[in-house]
């Protein structure tokens, strides 16, 4: 596959890893005193574990898995509202597969579907639009979930619905934005971050300038990264090099996809369809100012909150985290997944307690699925193909 295979070349990885090791040595970072690098995006978390990059980089580099997994930061109250919408007899509830297993207080969308709710997994909001065209006597609600990468696709779909006058299509908008939680993390006095690997696909929409505050106000390096293993390793090297040189800049490793100013058409669609909410609740992080988007009044007929009197539009609804769940502390990097008292005990992929165990992008699920510390030492997972006996 063009633009993929060449960025998965193991030979080039060797060179990158040696260079990373050299720079880590020059910084003087060690296992006991590592450089803390947060990959903000859940897609990066997934890639790090999928390719085993965490085991390849020297012990002086510690990855902290950031809040960029929309499913993981989705509060239970939002899941409950999804279930309520989906259980209305007139509604066809459409969602990305990611959200199906997230537990609400009563049930997940998966359970609601089993009980008879008409819930359809879609690949695209365009598929939800098509369902609305084909089912004029039903209400098709699309669960708008995700960061700036996904936000324009929902906006463009709402604009399309408006053009066609598709009155039976609406969006339950839970879109969120990346910079505010990063600021919240940087303001946290417990935070020990030395640098960031920035979310490449968010940045193809918003560009790189919205991260300037990270470098300018907080003095931390950030490198916007692609999603292939070589992209990630190169970005880690670029962050480390900045740290070694005492620089704090916004750099762009993913220039083949990310223009500095982002995508003007997508940004215009976002601006046309949404406005900022005063604040939005993040699971594990609490309410964060101006971190969520809602549909503007001029598109009110396509806003499921308006149409069905639900969500933030109907007033705040707060649901406490399940007892013993330490997702918040894991997400802020205060503890590792294995430091959570419920990890692997009360919380497993079969029976997730917290959201980080639900999505495969969640730090806990990735740890579990791809071999974080489940009685496996780092050496055995990389043992060579030769038989041991």
């Amino acid at each position, binding site marked *: 596959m*063009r633009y*993929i295979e060449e960025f998965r070349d193991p030979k080039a990885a060797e060179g990158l890893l040696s260079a990373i090791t050299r720079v880590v040595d020059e910084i003087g970072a060690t296992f006991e005193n590592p450089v803390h690098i947060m990959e903000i995006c859940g897609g990066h978390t997934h890639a790090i574990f999928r390719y085993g990059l965490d085991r390849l980089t020297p012990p002086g580099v510690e990855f902290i898995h950031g809040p960029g997994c929309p499913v993981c930061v989705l509060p239970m109250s939002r899941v409950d509202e999804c279930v309520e919408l989906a259980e209305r007899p007139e509604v066809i509830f459409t969602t990305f597969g990611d959200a199906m297993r997230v537990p609400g207080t009563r049930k997940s969308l998966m359970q609601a579907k089993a009980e008879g709710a008409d819930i359809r997994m879609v690949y695209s909001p365009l598929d939800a639009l098509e369902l609305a065209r084909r089912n004029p006597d039903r209400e098709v609600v699309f669960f708008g979930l995700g960061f700036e990468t996904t936000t324009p696709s929902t906006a*463009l779909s709402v604009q399309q619905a408006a053009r066609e006058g598709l009155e039976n299509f609406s969006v339950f908008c839970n879109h969120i934005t990346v910079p505010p939680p990063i600021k919240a993390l940087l303001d946290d006095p417990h935070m020990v971050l030395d640098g960031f690997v920035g979310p490449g696909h968010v940045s193809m929409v918003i560009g790189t300038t919205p991260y300037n505050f990270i470098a300018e106000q907080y003095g931390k390096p950030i490198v916007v990264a692609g999603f292939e293993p070589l992209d990630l390793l190169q970005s880690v090297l670029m962050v480390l090099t900045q740290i070694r040189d005492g620089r704090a800049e916004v750099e762009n490793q993913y220039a083949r996809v990310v223009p500095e100013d982002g995508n003007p058409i997508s940004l215009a669609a976002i601006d046309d369809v949404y406005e900022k909410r005063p604040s939005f609740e993040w699971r594990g992080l609490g309410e964060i100012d101006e971190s969520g988007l809602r549909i503007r009044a001029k598109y009110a007929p396509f806003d499921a909150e308006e149409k069905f009197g639900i969500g933030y539009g109907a007033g705040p609804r707060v649901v406490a985290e399940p007892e013993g769940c330490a997702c918040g502390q894991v997400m802020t990097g205060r503890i590792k997944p294995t430091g959570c008292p419920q990890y692997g005990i009360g919380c497993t992929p079969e029976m997730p307690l917290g959201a980080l165990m639900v999505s495969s992008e969640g730090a806990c699920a990735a740890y579990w699925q791809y071999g974080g510390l489940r009685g496996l030492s780092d050496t055995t997972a990389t043992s060579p193909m030769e038989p041991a006996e």
Partner: protein
Amino acid sequence: MCLGIPGQIIEITDEVRQMAMADISGVRREVSVAPVVDGPLDGLIGSYALIHVGFAMALIDEDEAARTLEALQGLGEAQETLDAMEDGARALEGQS
């Protein structure tokens, strides 16, 4: 977050709705090219775009991709040189 994959635009399927067929490793999916429209739609045919949830979100810049790869290859070659130097140093130590 934000799974995206490079695909090639092979055909415009709906001028009005700005829809096109994308080929991703032999799998075809109709996508919206609305975010990357810049002039006549036909001009997009043959180009590679980053596909996310059924939208071509960005055109892939061939030159930038080549530049990144060049830098990566440079590192690989630098590594080979370093390895050779270390081997040389080890050989010298062996002699002394």
